[in-house]
């Protein structure tokens, strides 16, 4: 056996545990994050979202607040550029926007479009990504703070739509601080969370779809 062969064998042997470690570490990280996030009972956070969609003639920057109370309540309120509210209680959606000024009630069961929209929101905002392993190839981009990249696997619904999703967690890993979604069409969404509060009481007004005054 010549020297080169020995070096190759040693190199291969030394690389294979590294591959195994990398594979294992993603699941370990996901498990660790899930454990931390499973303690979240309530969430209230501000957000700034930048949408670069071809359907719009300019980049849309959205500012608002998200409220979550497990297991039944979710609210999405935007303040800029227009005021809009969506409150989800179980599978019923109430929505209101200032232009129309009407409260609309929609059952998710009867509205597949809303189901998709809400499903995507819940998926990425939940922070519970272990169950996505079958749907996405997940890679760990950075350990501190944790940054993950999700690439849809073939034969999934996301495969033809999403190019990748990048998620950055807070330093304390208790919630997400940034979500970036790149679509296959070139459209993109960047969502940043600000002033996030975990497990603090949420004002009942958060669940009112139409703001007072």
């Amino acid at each position: 056996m010549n020297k080169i062969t020995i070096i190759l064998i040693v190199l291969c042997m030394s690389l294979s545990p590294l591959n195994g470690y990398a594979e294992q570490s993603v699941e370990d990280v996901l498990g660790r994050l899930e454990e931390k996030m499973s303690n979240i009972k309530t969430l209230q956070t501000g957000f700034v979202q930048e949408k670069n969609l071809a359907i719009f003639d300019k980049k849309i920057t959205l500012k608002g607040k998200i409220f979550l109370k497990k297991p039944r309540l979710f609210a999405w309120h935007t303040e800029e550029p227009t005021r809009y509210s969506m409150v989800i209680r179980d599978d019923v959606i109430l929505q209101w926007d200032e232009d129309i000024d009407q409260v609309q009630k929609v059952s998710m069961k009867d509205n597949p479009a809303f189901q998709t929209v809400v499903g995507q929101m819940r998926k990425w905002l939940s922070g519970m990504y272990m169950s996505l392993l079958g749907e996405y190839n997940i890679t760990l981009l950075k350990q501190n703070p944790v940054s993950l990249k999700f690439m849809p696997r073939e034969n999934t619904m996301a495969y033809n739509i999403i190019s990748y999703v990048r998620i950055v967690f807070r330093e304390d890993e208790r919630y997400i601080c940034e979500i970036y979604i790149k679509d296959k069409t070139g459209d993109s969404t960047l969502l940043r969370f600000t002033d996030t509060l975990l497990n603090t009481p949420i004002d009942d007004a958060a669940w009112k779809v139409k703001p007072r005054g």
Partner: protein
Amino acid sequence: MADKRKRLIFGLAAGIIIFAAIGIRFISFDNDIELMLPANPEILRSLRFFRESNISDKVILSLKLKSQERTTHDLIQAVEKLEKSLNLPLITEVISGISKADLIQEMHSFLEYVPQLLNEQDLSKIEKQITHAGVKASLSRNYQQLLTPGSGFIMPFIQSDPLGIKSGFLSNIQKLSSSLGYSVKIKNGHFISQNGRNAMLILKTPVRLTDGFGSRNLIAYLHKQLESLPEFVSADIIAGHIHTISNEDVIKRDIRLTLIIASAAFLLLFLFIFRDIRAVLIFLIPLISVLVSINLSAIVLGKLSYFIIGMGAVVAGIAVDYGIHVYLAVRTGAGKPDAVKKIIRPVIIAALTTIGVFAAFFFSSVKGYHQLALFSILSIILCLVCALFVLPYLLAGKHYRNLPVMLKQGSSMHSQVFDRICIACWGVIIIAAIVLSWQLEFNNDISQLDGSKPEVIQTEQGFHNVWGGADKPAILVVSGENLEEALQCNERIYTKAVNEVGEDNFAPMGLSSFAELWLSNQTRIANSARWNKFWSEGREAKLKELLQEHGQTYHFSDDAFSPFFKHLYIEKIIENTPEGLTFFDQLKERFILKKADGYQVLSFFPDKDKYVKALGAISSRYSKTFLVSRNAFPACSQTQFHQKLSFYQELPGC
């Protein structure tokens, strides 16, 4: 000479018994429930519908994660491995879910057909949307949906349908997909339960439910393949074939049990009363007669029902009387075979009376009764012949001890007073029975003919707890010589049902009709012409203008909705149904059955009396339609059974 005759009879009897015993292994047995039901066209049509449709012959595998530490991902991996191991010839296709990869593209492609499906009322609604307020509301809704994360999934739908005209059809697809009442979610293209702990595989098999041998092979094959599942996954098989096997096993076990109990009772009775080992022959004669009759009946009828064979013990019980009479005659006649001559006439008359009753069953419309009649009559004749012409020679020449006291003529118990008491008691019992018979209620639930083992039923209950679907819907079947004819009739009935009952009134699951998804060629041609005319009368330009004007408020680009206008006018109308859309093909398979003589279009609705009556009234106006209701079925068969009962009550000796 007598010994030679005796040996000849012995030899002949032994030969027949051996042939009969061997022959029984080659007989085809049948557990088709139809044999046991009156030949009512409605009942038979319903049963045949289930048998001939692809509804009841499918096999479902329900797989469950046993370990809490394992995830849905692990379950899906196990399912995929199992799926690959299921092959021909017993499994022709495995459906593990719906591939979502192309689902959005497929839905998008299907929605291009929607203008062909919209009627005049739909166009009126669109007309109301082409206003400043209407367009503004639509744009606002689109804008807000597009600003949520993951808007890429709905982008193509919004661009090609800014007014949301077609969104109702997405709901219809969803509604039709859940028309059988199962609660399923799709994960990575697989059927997964709501809690993520179970997966479902639907298997297509060429093995028919009534094929006992094939069912056994199929289930054995599945059990073998399931052995390869990892230890953290368990599997349940849900299939009509399990009922077939279980019923066969139960009937066979019952026949064996009945024979053992009857044999023991007869033997003990004969040996205790007659105190003679030859009394065993009395018991053997009906048993052998039944065995030979099964073979003869099978030669005449081809197949024999297990239900009928189960009656063998009853027939043997009736026919054993002839042997008893002959035995007593020979024994009281000092062991001479000639002693039988005294009783030949009354015994033959008794047998003919019994044969007459069974012969009456030939007039029944229940095919199973014909089998019962033939089998019973053959058994009785054979038993009679053996008892009168064989048994005396087997009993002859023996010096019998005295008969026990209670069997002797003129015993002290047999007084005139005792006779009168017996007759009086009998009279009272008969009168009481006649009175009580008026209040008699018959349990006509045909599911009671299903003798499947409790574990089969428990498995099915467990399956329904996870997946739902316990309440089976009723089915409206519309037939046609071709698909176009069936679809046209289906549309007419659907429209009438919606107008007369109200679509939303079919609680809880609603009326699921293929007419909500696809229409006949004739209707689509008319709709298309109307659609094209609608937009060509200035509405296209008006909508463009309104979208342009209000789109600016929401920063929509100028060509944001160009996909809608690009395909606005219908240029080509497909003749039959869309092709290459997997979700559509799967729905079509559920709602449309191709038959040898045409097509059947099915609609599903809650199996409740009021809906069955309402749709029954509508469908009765159309000759090629019928309803299949599991709940209404017993009522239908009850009437038939009562009619038959009246007929038999009027027969002498019944």
